[in-house]
């Protein structure tokens, strides 16, 4: 990562070589919101004959995504990050890639014909959908997707951009250090910050008391925490249901933490 919070591509040529089979990258950082240059990475990976998997858990819920334009081979989504039920999700993949792959699970619907010494498999996608799926959860996810579509992902993005810019300005103004890119044009609404010397877990409890829900911890990104030189960060994040007034409440609650700990 560069100092300002971008994926460091300066040594991409030495990292992605003819030995590269698969590159997995997040579309948007769950810690600092950086929107990664997926298309440029996909082009580099394809140039050496590899495939690219994009973790879309943060990207897809927050802005319009066109898999053809990104030219990614795989894209994963997580339902509970996009107003859907827990334990729902999905995998997009290019048909020609899926057709080359063997099934990873046996069970009903993935099979075509069974012989004593071999079997043939059903067509994609049934080949990868062995047994009973999470039917209820996926129907719930479909409803969530319809709902987001009815609002429009452009509108979702615009709302979150405005909130993110506002939050970064207000947090910084209150004396917090916001990690990563500072302009919402290049990032999503996961806003990680440090506030003076208040430990993130203490801060999260104080904010919780004020009705402000944040995440405190390393966000499953321990390498990034080391890069920032912190054990953990406090992270506020936004979606369509958040408001500017809630950002104000967050900033106001920071003042309470300072008063409490006397830093």
């Amino acid at each position, binding site marked *: 990562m560069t100092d300002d919070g971008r994926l460091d591509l300066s040594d991409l040529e030495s990292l992605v070589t003819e030995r590269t089979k698969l590159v997995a990258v997040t579309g948007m950082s769950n810690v600092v919101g950086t929107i990664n240059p997926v298309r440029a990475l996909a082009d580099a990976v394809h140039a050496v004959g590899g495939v690219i998997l994009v973790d879309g858990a943060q990207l897809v819920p927050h802005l319009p995504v066109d898999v053809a334009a990104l030219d990614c081979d795989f894209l994963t989504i997580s339902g509970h990050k996009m107003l859907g039920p827990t334990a729902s999700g999905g995998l997009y993949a290019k048909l020609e890639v899926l057709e080359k792959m063997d099934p990873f699970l046996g069970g009903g619907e993935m099979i075509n014909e069974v012989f004593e010494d071999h079997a043939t498999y059903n067509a994609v996608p049934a080949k990868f959908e062995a047994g009973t799926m999470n039917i209820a959860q996926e129907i719930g996810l479909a409803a969530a997707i319809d709902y987001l579509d009815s609002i429009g992902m452009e509108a979702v993005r615009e709302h979150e951009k405005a909130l993110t810019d506002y939050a970064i300005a207000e947090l910084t103004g209150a004396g917090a250090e916001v990690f990563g890119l500072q302009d919402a044009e290049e990032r999503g609404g996961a806003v990680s910050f440090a506030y003076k010397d208040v*430990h*993130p*877990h*203490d801060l999260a*409890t*104080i904010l919780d*008391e004020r009705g402000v829900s944040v995440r*405190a*911890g*390393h966000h499953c990104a*321990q390498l990034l*925490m080391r890069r920032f030189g912190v*054990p*953990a960060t406090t992270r506020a994040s936004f979606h369509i249901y958040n408001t500017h007034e809630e950002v104000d409440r967050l900033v106001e609650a920071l003042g309470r933490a300072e008063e*409490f*700990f*006397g830093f």
Partner: protein
Amino acid sequence: MSLDELYKEVILDHYKNPRNKRDVPGAGLSCSRNNPLCGDEITVFVNLDGDVVSEVAFQGQGCSISQSSASMMTEAVAGKDVAGTLAMAAEFRAMMAGDSDPGEDEFGELVALKGVVKYPIRVKCAVLAWDVLQEALQGDGSSAGTATH
């Protein structure tokens, strides 16, 4: 239970002015652990005089709960024998699980941490130092590892 009660003065005092926070080179027993979920780290050093905990100190970093708990622990167990220390660790864990309600006469300042029970996600912070101390006393005396909760 309000936040002000949770972070009683005593917790903040131990957090800002931790007792026995120092390295003990050549300690008879020591153990390090971190909690990967929150990044808290505690190392406990113990010297025994026969069966008695004659010196106990800690090093570490983390939130106010984990660091104040470690500080209070070092004062609470100094001078106890090993069996008494382990019994106190068990009692402390029971207190943090909400299964025991020791009084101040028995537990001293440690009762200040009772309020943490109301914040289940923070209980692990309070218990970490005690887990490390117990492992130092019961393990091979030079273990390092990762807390499992």
